């Protein structure tokens, strides 16, 4: 009897652990939404900041983040998908393939601030790009590359072997087979991974801190060699470096809400897309 009661207690403890995590997540989101909504206005979203961010809006930071995300994806997506096609369709078991896989695993574990140091050393200083959009995008692209490769490879491997064999048997070459019979079926899966990568690129602060982000720059970028403001960095500056932290609280909550909406919206899109693919694709 006593044993049964202990077991019950353990079960309840684990349930409590699980739901306390849920509670904390909910309270973070609630706190940001509740305090952030009053700060959101048309002016906040479309005006430039004034008085080092105390007044005005956050348009340059929103534009900056969007520019960074688009640039990052433009670099990382083709590179990631090509790597995945090589790994899934061409690579043979061997030293080189093992080295690639080890490299991808290593990249996935490198801390974001170390990517920042690497970007600073290679793109900003060695290649003389300076702190610029191009340096930031390349750094972020290195960071999200493993996410895109891993999910694209998974999508490619999910295509049944018979589709490839059928095409090859009809006399198509390997590349024709991949292009016409494999890629079309794996595109949705690849998209899911890229969307997750977008979310990561939009939310990271540490790499852009060292390679592109401007402390305060109330104008829009004109070329890829300009610096930009970015939402996560702007939030960090407002929350910790601003001379009157308490007074600009509403601006901080507003910025946090915009960033959170952007990143969670992107992640939600990825989750929904994944569910749709699973429903539709039954081989």
């Amino acid at each position, binding site marked *: 009897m006593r044993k049964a009661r202990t077991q019950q207690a353990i079960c309840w403890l684990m349930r409590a652990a699980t739901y306390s995590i849920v509670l904390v997540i909910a309270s973070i989101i609630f706190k940001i939404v509740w305090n952030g909504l009053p700060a959101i206005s048309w002016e906040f979203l479309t005006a430039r900041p004034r008085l080092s961010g105390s007044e005005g809006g956050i348009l340059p930071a929103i534009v900056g983040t969007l520019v960074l995300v688009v640039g990052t994806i433009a670099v990382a997506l083709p590179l990631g998908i090509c790597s995945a096609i090589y790994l899934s369709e061409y690579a043979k078991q061997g030293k080189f393939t093992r080295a690639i896989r080890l490299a991808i695993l290593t990249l996935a574990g490198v801390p*974001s601030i*170390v990517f920042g140091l690497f970007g600073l050393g290679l793109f900003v200083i060695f290649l003389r790009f300076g702190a610029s959009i191009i340096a930031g995008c390349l750094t972020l692209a290195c960071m999200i590359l493993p996410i895109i490769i891993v999910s694209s490879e998974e999508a490619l491997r999910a295509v049944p072997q018979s589709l490839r064999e059928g095409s090859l048997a009809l006399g198509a070459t390997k590349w024709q087979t991949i292009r016409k019979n494999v890629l079309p079926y794996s595109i949705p899966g690849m998209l899911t991974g890229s969307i997750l990568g977008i979310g990561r690129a939009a939310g990271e602060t540490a790499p852009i801190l060292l390679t592109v982000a401007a402390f305060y720059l109330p104008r829009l970028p004109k070329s890829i060699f300009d610096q930009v403001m970015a939402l996560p960095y702007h939030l960090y500056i407002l929350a910790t470096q601003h001379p009157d932290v308490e007074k600009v609280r509403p601006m901080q909550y507003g910025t946090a809400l915009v960033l959170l909406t952007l990143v969670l919206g992107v992640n939600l899109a990825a989750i929904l897309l994944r569910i749709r693919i699973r429903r539709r694709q039954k081989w």
Partner: protein
Amino acid sequence: MKTAWQEKAVKLTLFSAASTSILIVLGIFTFLGKEAGHFAVTPGIEKLLSGRWVPVSFQEESFGLLPLITGSLLVTVLAMVLTIPFGVGASVYISELARPLEREILKPFIEILAGIPSVVIGFFGLVVLAPLVKGAFGLPTGFTALTGAALLALMAIPTVISISEDAIRSVPESYKAASLALGASRMQTMWRVTVPAALPGIVAAVMLGTGRVIGETMAVMMVTGNAAVITGSPFKSVRTMTATIAAEMGEVPFGSEHYRALFCVGIVLLLATFGLNIIAQKVLKKYRMG
């Protein structure tokens, strides 16, 4: 003839794309190693072993990594003390005890946590958790190692849950069936059969979570107070390696000793996470859970 040529070109393109991952890893080690190497020559690697980090000073600068390493260690250990019971408890609950519908709701909800940007979590810590810690323990400031550790635990938990849940699920159904057939209760089966069988995967999950914790920058920088002192107290302010790089890199002159010392900090970080990752992957692979 044209197609054969085309096939070769495609293969070569894909091959070079796949090689970039290797190039990036080599690049990271080269560029961090280059600056750290300069530091090792002048002023010499023994400078890093001192117990004081005073990079800007009118008398004598001191680049001892010890306070930063102990800061990172303290925060990491505290974070893992919080992460392990919650993360492992939740993963066992979700995979073994929760009803199917409950599981379908809980899993994506916890995945959301993984998607929240670290700077937003840091901001939450700044406005909610730090005052809470200050009040609860009667401290002069809420910016302590403990505050940082709590936020880091939040960020490690999704990683730990998702990997250990996979490990628990990959335990063959036949193990459980055999245990139940021998008359063991559901709870006994769970604790004596399923969890032990999944243990290597759970250990690997905790290690990967630790890697994430050591490398985290923004949240930690916003709430730990950033005082470079050697302490073992969770209620003191500490400065981690990541926060040091992020906070100081913006102000150092390129090529100075301070600049190079920060790259040395980067190398230590890189090696620590690299080591943890490799061991975790070895464990996962050995038990075929990866």
